[in-house]
């Protein structure tokens, strides 16, 4: 058939139809899903095994495109094929070294599989690629948890250089510097945080205060202290700051701080007398205490006890007695009442002694032979008094008690023995032991420095402490920045350092935490891992 015949036979519409058909074939072919689409469709339909087969074949054929690797990662995750997942993720990270998302995913994988070394390295790389506060925080926390202090310090420094400003970690860095003896650097870091008013916990503030005092900047320390105290009005914290100054032998600064932060007659202003006593200014302290007692309003038990201690130290038993009487003798602990009774016995204030005696328990009297001896002697029972005196160990007595002991020994006819003993203890008598003491308002003996030695060493260290320091009879705790709790621990059971400005505040915090916890509990049963929870 010639071409003319063919042309004659082919109708135009047939050509058009043919073209349309061919186009449809091409278009149909073009619309067939490619391999990527096929994989996606298989995954959509839950045919993951088939999808994985295709992807693995492509991977084996050298396909390292990000899309392939991403899909493989997803499928390996689904099938729990951890070694292959790791290889693929690492290949992905290698293929895209600047991809922060991939780095993050790799880090998350290491975290999820507890590959800690790789996780730390991934975090460091992530920080190198692009600073991330979350990564820094994690890195620092992990080093800290493991107790890798040098690495922790290096990580904080590195992160700070990239803009990390988390106050907790800057404070920690300061503490690490302080532990290395670099008080200046520590103070500088803490000062920076405090300037931004982000130094919130008492402990951190105390740290800065101490660093500043150590760096010989007491005025700045005082300025900051006054700012803190005016906001917090925390008595315990104030006393601790004053005490810190006293410990550093900065009595004038301590008095200045006390004056700036106190009201007449309050617990803080009482420290002035204590500091005076600490400096040996007994007469001034006595005068101050008398003035303080006049302005004191509703003192607490703790403050009253401090006042009594100070008054007895200031050789002013009468003031201590009258203040205690106003407060209520029965409200005072027996130990202090004993001290008061002994001091009053020394100065011969019989009615006052009787008043104190009336609130002493039988057990207290039985366990204090010195006081018992004084009482027996008061009743004219010399022999009974003598017997009780035999039970007294003069080595363990303080100045007031030694004076009383010497007097009782004298009055029971053993003055010589007492003198010998006093001399052996290195005690000098300001008056002869046989001098009537009834009118004396002060202890008759004073302890010379050399007396220290064995006798004092046998006593609790608190008895050697300076007066202001003696205030603290129990562990005093400060609120820490994050009142966080270890997982699973009850709200109140704070972890690292216990909180503790005062009970009321703690209770309030606990209550708030409890309310928050209850609210949370109402929302969900708080399925935190660390406390038993299985669904």
């Amino acid at each position, binding site marked *: 058939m010639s071409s003319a015949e063919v042309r004659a036979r082919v109708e135009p519409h047939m050509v058009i139809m043919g073209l349309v058909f061919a186009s449809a074939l091409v278009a149909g072919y073009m619309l067939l899903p490619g391999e990527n689409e096929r994989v996606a469709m298989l995954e959509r339909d*839950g045919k*993951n095994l088939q999808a994985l087969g295709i992807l693995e074949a492509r991977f084996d054929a050298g396909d390292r495109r990000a899309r392939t690797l991403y899909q493989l990662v997803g499928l390996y*995750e*689904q*099938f*729990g*094929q*951890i070694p292959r997942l790791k290889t693929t993720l690492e290949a992905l990270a290698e293929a895209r070294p600047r991809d922060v998302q991939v780095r993050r995913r790799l880090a998350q994988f290491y975290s*999820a599989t*507890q590959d800690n070394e790789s996780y730390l390295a991934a975090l460091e790389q992530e920080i190198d690629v692009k600073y991330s506060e979350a990564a820094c925080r994690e890195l*620092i*926390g*992990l080093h*800290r*948890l493991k*107790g890798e*202090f040098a690495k922790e310090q290096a990580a904080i420094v590195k992160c700070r250089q990239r803009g990390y400003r988390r106050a907790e970690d800057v404070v920690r860095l300061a*503490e690490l510097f302080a*532990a290395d003896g670099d008080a200046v650097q520590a103070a500088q870091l803490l000062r920076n945080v405090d300037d931004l008013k982000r130094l919130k916990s008492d402990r951190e503030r*105390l*740290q800065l205060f101490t660093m500043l005092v150590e760096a010989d900047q007491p005025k700045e320390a005082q300025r900051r202290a006054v700012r803190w105290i005016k906001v917090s009005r925390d008595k315990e914290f104030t006393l*601790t700051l004053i005490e*810190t100054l006293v*410990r550093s*032998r900065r009595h004038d600064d301590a008095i200045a701080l006390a004056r700036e932060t106190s009201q007449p007659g309050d617990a803080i202003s009482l420290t002035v007398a204590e500091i005076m006593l600490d400096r040996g200014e007994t007469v001034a302290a006595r005068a101050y205490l008398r003035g303080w007692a006049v302005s004191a309003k509703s003192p607490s038990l703790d403050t009253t006890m401090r006042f009594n201690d100070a008054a007895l130290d200031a050789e002013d038993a009468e003031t201590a007695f009258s203040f205690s009487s106003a407060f209520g003798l029965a409200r005072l*602990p*027996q*130990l202090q009442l004993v001290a008061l009774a002994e001091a009053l016995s020394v100065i011969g204030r019989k009615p006052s002694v009787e008043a104190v005696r009336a609130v002493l328990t039988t057990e207290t009297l039985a366990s204090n032979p010195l006081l018992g001896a004084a009482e027996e002697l008061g009743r004219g029972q010399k022999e009974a008094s003598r017997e009780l005196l035999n039970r007294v160990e003069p080595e363990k007595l303080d100045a007031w008690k030694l004076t009383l002991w010497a007097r009782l020994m004298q009055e029971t006819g053993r003055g010589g023995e007492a003198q010998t003993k006093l001399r052996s203890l290195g005690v000098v008598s300001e008056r002869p032991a046989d001098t009537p003491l009834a009118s004396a308002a002060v202890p008759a003996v004073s302890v010379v420095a050399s007396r220290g030695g064995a006798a004092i060493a046998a006593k*609790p*260290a*608190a008895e050697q*402490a300076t007066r202001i*320091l*003696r205030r*603290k009879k129990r*562990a005093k705790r400060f609120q820490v920045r994050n009142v966080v*709790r*270890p*997982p*699973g*621990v*009850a709200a*109140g*059971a704070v*972890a*690292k*350092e216990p909180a*503790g400005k005062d*009970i009321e505040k703690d209770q309030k915090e*606990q209550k708030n935490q409890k309310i928050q916890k209850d609210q949370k*509990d*109402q929302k*969900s*049963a708080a399925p935190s*891992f660390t*406390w*038993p*929870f*299985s*669904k």
Partner: protein
Amino acid sequence: MRPTFRNRPRSGFEPNVRSRSNRWPATIGMMFLSLWAGLLLLLALKIPAAQAIEIEITERRIERDVLALYDSRAEKQSHETRIHQFAEMPLNFLGFRVNYHDINGSWPTPSETTGYRAVLTWFLEPMEAERAEALLNWLDSATDRGLKHVMLGEMAPGASDAGLAPLVRLHERLGLTHTGEYIDIAHKARVVAHNKSMVGFERPLDKVLPDYPVVVPVAGKSEAHLVLQADTRDGPMPSAVVATSAGGGFAASNFTIYFEPTSDRVLWVLNPFEFFRRALGWERMPVPDVTTLSGRRMYFSHVDGDGWNNLTEIEPFRDQERLSAEVIAEEAIIPFQDLPVSVAVIGGDLDPVLGGSRRGQAVARLLFALPHVEVASHTYTHPYNWSFFEDYNRQTEADAIARSLKPERPLREQFIGTLARLAGRDPPRGQYNPYIAGTDDLPRTYLKMPFELEQEVKGALKLSESFAPKGKKAKLYQWSGDTTPFAGAVRATRSAGVRNINGGDSRLDRAFPSVAYVPAIGRQAGAERQIYAANSNENTYTNDWTGPYYGFFLLEETLKNTEMPRRLKPFNLYYHMYSGEKAAALAAIKHFLRLARSSAVIPVPASLYAAIADDFYTTEIRKVDTEVWEVSNRGALQTVRFDDAGSLALDLDNSRGVLGATMHNGSLYVALDSAVDVARVALRAENRESPELSGRGAMLVEARWQIRNRREEDCGMSVDAEGFGRGDMIWRTRAGRAFEVVLFRGARELSREIVRAGADGLFRLQLEPDALDPVTLRFTCHE
């Protein structure tokens, strides 16, 4: 009581010096005393000081109880206390039982503290001054009566000076001097003495020394393990922040655990095992052990029924619309018949009245018919919050149901509903059922019926049994939700005659890198004990089932770390039925099943572990002679452990009711015979010639089956055995000795073989027949 001469340092063993009866006339007694004195003198002259002997002529009960005082105003319930969460597990490991007492109630009377070894306190939060003083007075009087005092943290925070006198005395009894001083900022303090085996356990001592109290150790009265010294203007002030003494032990607040807030993790700084061991007055004693049976680490598995009816996503089951429970049955239970598993159904999942499915019932029937599947219950209505039901109020629950958010109805349902309304018909009921909780926002899953404890426990157990073959009883109740049941609920399981388990969420891996995350054996709930699971489940490993779902593979870390260096827990594979939904989760379970199959473990039902754990609390131990103890009232517990036993061996000839022993981690695990009520365990120095090896029988080293009822025979012995899978076992006898070993079930002989011990005296058996029903093994001398 007779006089005792003990606690002398010793490195060897000497013949026992037994007591004499008091009924002898005084003169004869005096003569004997003189003779004894002479003999002792001779011995003393002959034996070097380093080999001093222990002479024990008193029979006495070993005191295993520790009284833990806690303040419910700071730590509301006993299980919320630090003592429970951190200290009780190490104490249990050392063999001690902990009983809790809230200081806000009445104080224990002297008679109530009789039999206690120590009182343990770990207070942190200030308490009212009066309460603190009362506490100090009580402690003063209790320790005056000889009770040891172990003090973690402060003795009585919040105490005023009124409590100073008892405070000072209490410190004195610990060999310490209380100063009242406190070092707030310790950057200038120095460590002047540091016992590294005691401090720096999981984390080194922090470079930034924390604040601490100044407590001065009294020379010769206490052993200071960490002494810090701060220079003050009064001179250097040393403080023993960790110390132990004959009176107990002390560790200051910041020297016990360390909490890292960023990672939210706790680590022990103090070595709790070493500290409690010393503080409680270390003595060699058989420790009731809940991890080991027949010389091997126990394996048990239990499955909570959650997700029973969920459709799986796993290929090829997904296309068949199979249930998760069906997948678990087919993939993880039926193919592993050598590994027992306790399967606990939730009543509501199977009870159509509450919304359960009949299809799910068929799976339960299939599973419970399998011989290695133990019937258990995971409650009826699946409480999430158990405390809610202690004082249950239906109205409160109804209010909560009304308040709960209803899910949005799918568009299709809305459209059909609209059409139905237009057609004047009732709209079809949607999928949403307000009485089935989708999440734990509500107190339990199945809310239709009011909560009844009887139904929740007995009803649930009965329902489980209804799917089991006739006569197969439910053995275990697996707690749901927050797994903190109230005392009444635990009691209900006891009265239903089943054991209970769950809670604790034990982990010890790199994400939870502390033994602080390994819980105690159980939890005190009133007068009852809840038994914790020995391992955590996949829910915690998968971030509350949000993924990644391969997370459960990490259980392997915990399994390793709770085996070495101390075997703290058995191998427990604990998961939920919803693991049948995800391929990765199922892969993890199968991995651990294969691991259990290939490991040297003894597979037991979960209820047996729970029974053993229960009996940890009942076991009584008496020391009857030098290195001889009697173990009684032990129920299902058949292993006692001796720590630091490198130089010791079991003296089988002088023991009774003992099958054998094996060494692991330097500890001697002694297998007891459950057929003997009061077992007598005797030890000897290992380097001596072993008397039992010259005897006729053999002693058990380890077995995959439970061995019991050892009977001596003419030349050899017989024992009964039962267990799962192949009977792999190792026995020890004289080197080169041969036995003919015949295995019987009843009168039917199952197998017979001749075995010969190697040069090490060991011979191995691999018995193929199953021992699901008890079998007898007869060893006859074969020369």
